[in-house]
Structures are given as C-alpha cells and as structure tokens.
C-alpha cells in the first residue's frame, strides 16, 4: 500500500500511552438491547496518535463499543468523549468509520462511491478520491461496479472511504475479514503508517496476529467489559500485549 499523504508532526512517539492526551474517552459505558446488556460498564482512555487493536470473543461487545464511539448508537449509561467533545455529531468531520459491512453502493463504481461520500464531507476534488483509491492499490478508472468487486477489493475500497476526508480518529470494524493474508498484512502496515502520521486508529479484529507488528496496544474485551485497562479501574489481564510501548 502507498504512503498516506497527510504527514503530521504529532505522530506516534515513545511516550507512555497514559501520558498522551486521550483522543477517545470511554467512561463506564453501559448498553442495553432490551434486557440484554451488550456493554457492562466499559471504560478506557484511547491516547491520541496510537493504534489500538480491540480483541475478544464474539458477543464481547466490541462492535457495539465502536458504534457508540462512532455516534451510531447512544449509550444507555455512561459517556463517550471523542476529540474533546461529548457531541459526536460536532466532530463527525474528524472521525472515519469502517463498519463490518462495506458501507458501499453495489450499483456504483469505486470512484462514483468515493465521489459521493467525499461530497458528504464537503470535498469535491476528484483528485482526493483518485488518491484514496491509489493508496489502496485500486484503479480509479475501473468502471466495474462495486457489486462485482472481490471481497478484498471491497474491503480496501471501504477503508479508502473511511479515510477519504483525512480523519484524525479512524474506527475500523473487522477490516481484514475475507481478505487474504498478504493483503491483510499490507493493510496492517498501511494502518501503521496512518498512526505514524498522527492518526488515532482503533481496529477490531479476530486476526490479532496480523496487527502484532504495528499495534501500540491490544485491548481485550469480554462479556461487555474492557478487561485490559491500563488507564481505568477495570481488571487488567496480563496477557495483553502493548506491543510498541514495551
């Protein structure tokens, strides 16, 4: 994958995570679906300019947490602050989200998709869309519709859509699902470079080994709680691997 084109100076550094200002603050978040509690008091401090990998079993509450951070859901209790604002709508321009589903229109080509989504962020420069596709090693001139893309191409285009507007916080839910090992490794390296350029990146994945070389910390979730919590009072698990800070 190509280098991200926005190079910022406040990128990842060697300071311990706790010393860095949080980009995302999750405070005692509870989320009920009917009587079922998907999140049971999750708390965490995600430092700016770091790359976190959120891992846990199915049903641990990872996607729910990410959707709450993205502003797609309201927590039943507790609060989430993103980039210093409790109103996630007000920082929407600075946050990028890639869901478990591709969030793309099958009937449109890759460029047509990106042009539309760029427009939602007030960006009308075609070059931005072309760059985003080229960064993901996709051909901007490919007229084939997204519905005819391979799974790997869809995932890469979905990632291009999420980072199109150069967000400061990037939330990715299973970006490597249905992606071959080689492409997943390239995507992981790309995410590492995004972090190096100052972005805060949260990645949910079941393929934690892919992120081993680039992650700053692995955040474990179980039964609706964050069980690795260096910055909160939650019980921490020793087997978490803050890869780059150790």
């Amino acid at each position, binding site marked *: 994958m190509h280098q991200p084109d926005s190079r910022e100076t406040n990128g990842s550094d060697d300071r311990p995570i706790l010393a860095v200002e949080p980009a995302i603050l999750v405070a005692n978040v509870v989320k009920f679906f009917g009587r079922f509690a998907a999140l049971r008091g999750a708390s965490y401090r995600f430092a700016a300019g770091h790359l976190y990998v959120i891992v846990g079993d199915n049903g641990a509450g990872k996607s729910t947490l990410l959707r709450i951070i993205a502003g797609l*859901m309201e927590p039943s209790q507790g609060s989430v602050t993103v980039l210093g604002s409790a109103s996630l709508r007000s920082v929407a*321009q600075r946050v990028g989200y890639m869901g478990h589903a591709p*969030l*793309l*229109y099958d*009937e449109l080509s890759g460029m047509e998709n990106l042009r*539309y989504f760029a427009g939602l*962020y007030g960006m009308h420069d075609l070059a931005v869309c072309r760059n985003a596709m080229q960064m993901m090693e996709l051909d901007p001139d490919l007229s084939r519709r997204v519905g005819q893309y391979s799974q790997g191409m869809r995932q890469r285009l979905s990632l291009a859509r999420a980072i199109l507007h150069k967000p400061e916080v990037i939330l990715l839910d299973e970006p490597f699902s249905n992606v071959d090992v080689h492409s997943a490794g390239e995507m992981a390296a790309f995410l590492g470079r995004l972090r190096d350029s100052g972005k805060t990146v949260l990645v949910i994945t079941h393929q934690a080994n892919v992120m081993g070389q680039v992650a700053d910390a692995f955040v474990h979730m179980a039964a609706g709680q964050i069980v690795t919590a260096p910055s909160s009072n939650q019980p921490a698990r020793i087997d978490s691997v803050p890869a780059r800070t150790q």
Partner: protein
Amino acid sequence: MSTMTMARATLAKDLRMEWRSKDAINSMLFFGLLVVVIFSFAFNPNAEESRHIAGGLIWVAFLFAAVVALNQTWARELRNQVLDAYRVSPAPANALFLAKAFGNFIFVAVLELLMAPLFIVFYNLRSVGPAWQLVVVAVLGTWALVVNGTFFAALSIRTRNREMMLPLILFPISIPALLAMVDSTTSILTGEASPDFWMKMLLVYDVVFTSVCLLLFESVLNAE
C-alpha cells in the same frame, strides 16, 4: 455544507442507481399497467361513468404503485449498511430526506406520465373542466404521497415486516390527501363542481406534512 447541495448530490446518486437497476420504475409500471387493464375489463364503463370513477381509480393505482417505489428507496440504503456511512458523516439528515422525497416524486411522476395516456385510452376519458388543473392536482397529490411515504418508509426500515408496515402506516394518514386528490380530479373531469376547496386542502396538507417530516426526520434516521 448546504442542505440543498447535499440533497442534489444524493438525488443524482439515486437517479443514477435507478437508471442502472430500474428496480423501482419497472415494478411500478408493471403494477400500474395491471390495475389499468384489469379495472377496465372489470368495469367496462362508458365515457360518462368513466369520468365519475376515474379519479378514484387513477389515484388508487398510483398510491399502490408508489408504495413499491417507496419500499425500494430505503432498501438500497440498508444493503451493505450504507446508511451508517451517511449517519457518521456531517451531512444534514434533512438533505437525505429531501433527496429521497424528490427522487420518489420523480419516479411516481414518470409513472403518471406513462400511465396517463393508457387511462385516457382504456377509460375513454375527456375532461369537461379545465384540464390544466389536473396537472396542479397531480403535482400536489404526488408530493402528498411521496413526502409521507418517504418518511414512513424510513420509520419502518428497522421493523421486521417493513414491506407490510409501510402501507399499514401510510394509508390511514394519507386518507385526507387521497380524498382531496380523488374529489378534485373527479370535479375537474366531470366539470360538475369547483375543485378549488380540495386543491387548497391538498396544498395545506403538503405544507403541514412536509414541515412535520423535516422536523422529525433526524430523530427517525438516528433511532435505534
């Protein structure tokens, strides 16, 4: 970012997608054609009878056909959960609503343009009153159908039986508009009464429901 700029971009995207798939327009046309043909065989009316029943037939046909398009509107946004991409963006919710409503208006208007000659031929229709008023009624009536339909289709997208839910919610709330559409059309076709009252009622209905839908749409879009 202006709401209208966003709405234009979303409308252009929807029209492009419909042009390629023709999902909504084909379903509506097929349904509309069936109604025209079957009703013409069932009633076999003369010209005078036609003028009295055509208002009801035309609008019932358009109402049922419109439901097909209205269900398609949000189905596209649910595939691949694309609606989430809109919700996380800073684009205003009302831009999405206006784009969808205008899109549906265009689809139903195309249906009406294509079906009108068939109604005239099959029912031997001639307007006794001023025919230009039919155009005004068509515009106001179509907007009444699509503005509520777009809103309630959005409201029902997260329900399990959304294709059944939409008519269940939409038809009762559309009764005043439907009454106004049918009576004004019949008044114009027969020339027996002035359609002014019904046309004004349609206009008021459109203004009230457009305002209410715009006020409430953001809550509907972000409802869990």
